[in-house]
């Protein structure tokens, strides 16, 4: 993974000192809250429902064990002993104090971490395929480009006061595990006919009030032109994005209003004027960064999978876990392990300090000291020898991180919701807990197969409910929490925005409603059909009928 050099270290250290000064000036009265707010947001510090919340950047979801241990320490020392991993591969600390934040940032800087631009109207954490570097379907390591973009976008003087926030995601795999189509810019690496490496550039995706899938404005952008092209897109957006209405200020609105073709033309015109100038990334720098993402020293191993029958005899839980949470690794003899942060009845995406330290320990002992944070709010141990799978399972089980539900219906994405968030209309966590409890049975979960079930506590859609097979949106009806259900969303491939199934459900009705939906799927499906495929074939009607049929 990327390691800071003196330049990176200097920048982060200076940033900490800068923020320390800004906090002091706020407390002294030299800065009003209005003046201070954008500054603290650009350092990831929100005022939330209960207190300040700090969002720490985990660039493209990659962490070293040392960094994960430091996050655990911060959770203990400065917070209530836990953290929350988000759909943008970041971590949030819910209970911070303004006076402590400079010290927290300093503790982060010591391990090459920061909270720069995790909020504010600027370019946010660049996310990437969480299985970059290890997945079998990958062309090259997407994180190389995510790191290049990260540096270019950090404290960019021209683009720090955009009309609104800006999110970029990168993938280099056949399967999109980074939800490219719902980002402001999605970049898909692929090869052209001549074998050259480049990007499909998608622009204007997003969720929230107006969910929309990104449009491809360029099928192939040569690798070398990445930064100049991004600069052109951002410049067009900075000038033309709306400044009068924050609900219409994202780039998706601009692309929608003028049309993808017109938008592309503006970008190409601007790009033509800058493409051969100073933003052409030097080969030396590309090589330098790429070297950090070289594969670790894998052993040459036989590619023998643990025998499931033997595993089941050894411990029933282990067989289930092998089935659910272990994925194919490009290197023979190795596997990709998901450490589930979705325990039945737990809070999706939360990890205690002890759990973080435990995962760091497993990564060091059994892996190469690296951990990933996924878009689905889970952790991944990317390089586990197949011969160690049983031991790793035992270790994760001891930590409570071995729930064997990866990719299944109880692998729920949920935002913090009204329990934590100032913007929320309804709680999401209790719904996730009860859904988990209702559908906990693993055999049933496997029978249901891969399903995405996401919950957002408000229209801002941080839980990504729009792109879930079953999406749940919390709404406020005259002070009472209600839940609207959408069906048929998808975050991968071409992407899809879910359709509202009908009137919203009361809190005590939601779990039964989801059960009814799953029953319809089971009765309608053809052999081998996943939930979303059945939905696409039969449409909303059977679901509506079952849910809203007169009693």
């Amino acid at each position: 993974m990327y390691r800071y050099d003196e330049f990176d270290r200097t920048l982060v250290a200076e940033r900490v000192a800068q923020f320390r000064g800004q906090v002091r000036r706020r407390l002294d009265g030299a800065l009003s809250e209005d003046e201070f707010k954008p500054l603290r947001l650009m350092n990831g510090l929100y005022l939330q429902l209960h207190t300040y919340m700090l969002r720490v950047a985990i660039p493209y979801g990659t962490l070293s064990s040392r960094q994960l241990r430091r996050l655990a320490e911060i959770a203990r020392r400065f917070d209530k002993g836990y953290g929350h991993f988000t759909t943008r591969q970041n971590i949030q600390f819910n209970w911070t104090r303004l006076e402590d934040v400079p010290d927290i940032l300093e503790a982060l800087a010591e391990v090459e971490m920061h909270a720069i631009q995790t909020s504010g109207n600027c370019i946010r954490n660049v996310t990437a395929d969480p299985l970059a570097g290890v997945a079998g379907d990958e062309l090259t390591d997407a994180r190389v480009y995510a790191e290049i973009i990260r540096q270019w976008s950090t404290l960019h003087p021209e683009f720090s006061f955009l009309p609104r926030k800006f999110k970029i995601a990168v993938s280099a795999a056949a399967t999109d595990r980074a939800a490219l189509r719902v980002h402001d810019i999605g970049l898909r690496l692929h090869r052209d006919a001549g074998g050259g490496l480049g990007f499909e550039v998608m622009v204007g995706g997003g969720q929230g009030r107006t969910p929309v899938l990104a449009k491809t404005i360029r099928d192939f952008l040569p690798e070398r032109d990445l930064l100049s092209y991004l600069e052109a897109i951002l410049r067009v957006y900075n000038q033309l994005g709306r400044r009068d209405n924050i609900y219409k200020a994202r780039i998706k609105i601009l692309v929608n209003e003028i049309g993808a073709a017109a938008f592309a033309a503006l970008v190409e015109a601007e790009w033509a004027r800058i493409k051969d100038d100073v933003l052409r990334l030097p080969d030396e720098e590309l090589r330098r960064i790429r070297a950090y993402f070289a594969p670790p020293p894998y052993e040459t191993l036989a590619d023998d999978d643990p025998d499931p029958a033997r595993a089941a005899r050894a411990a029933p839980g282990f067989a289930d876990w092998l089935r659910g949470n272990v994925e194919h690794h490009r290197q023979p003899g190795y596997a990709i392990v998901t450490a589930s942060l979705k325990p039945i009845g737990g809070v999706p995406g939360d990890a205690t300090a002890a759990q973080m330290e435990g995962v760091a320990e497993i990564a060091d002992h059994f892996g190469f000291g690296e951990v990933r944070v996924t878009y689905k709010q889970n952790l991944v141990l990317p390089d586990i020898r197949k011969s160690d799978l049983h031991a790793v399972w035992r270790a994760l089980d001891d930590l409570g991180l071995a729930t064997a539900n990866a990719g299944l219906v109880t692998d729920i994405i949920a935002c913090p919701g009204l329990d934590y968030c100032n913007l929320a209309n309804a709680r999401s966590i209790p719904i996730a807990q009860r859904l988990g409890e209702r559908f906990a049975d693993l055999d049933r979960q496997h029978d249901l197969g891969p399903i995405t079930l996401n919950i957002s506590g408000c229209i801002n859609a941080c839980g990504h409910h729009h792109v879930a097979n079953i999406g749940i949106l919390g709404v406020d009806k005259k002070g009472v929490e209600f839940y609207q259900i959408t069906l048929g969303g998808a975050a991968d491939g071409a992407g899809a925005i879910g359709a509202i199934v009908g009137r919203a459900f009361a809190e005590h009705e939601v779990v039964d409603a989801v059960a009814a939906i799953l029953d319809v799927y089971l009765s309608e499906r053809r052999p081998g059909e996943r939930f979303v495929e059945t939905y696409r074939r039969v449409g909303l009607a059977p679901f509506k009928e079952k849910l809203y049929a007169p009693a």
Partner: protein
Amino acid sequence: MPLKVITANRLIDGRVVYLTRANDWSRRLADAWPAEDEAEAARLLDLAEAHVRARRVIGVYAFPVVRADGGLAPVSQRERIRTFGPSLEWPPMARGA
């Protein structure tokens, strides 16, 4: 008009506080000074704004409460959560259906 209390977040640590009779800030809702009418609420908001200028608190607003169990209770779910903490930590009966 229902009773209203004034709340804010402490600038230095963000913690939720309520304006008291002593024109001070307490972490406990029970210490809050309930305004009985609009004029009183407006007056209390003015007092609170002075505290904002003095850099003690930010995010001042008023919200409705009722008298209950010898003290004050928030009316809305949001304020209940803000007062008592995340609902996941509440006793099971209090969490909802």
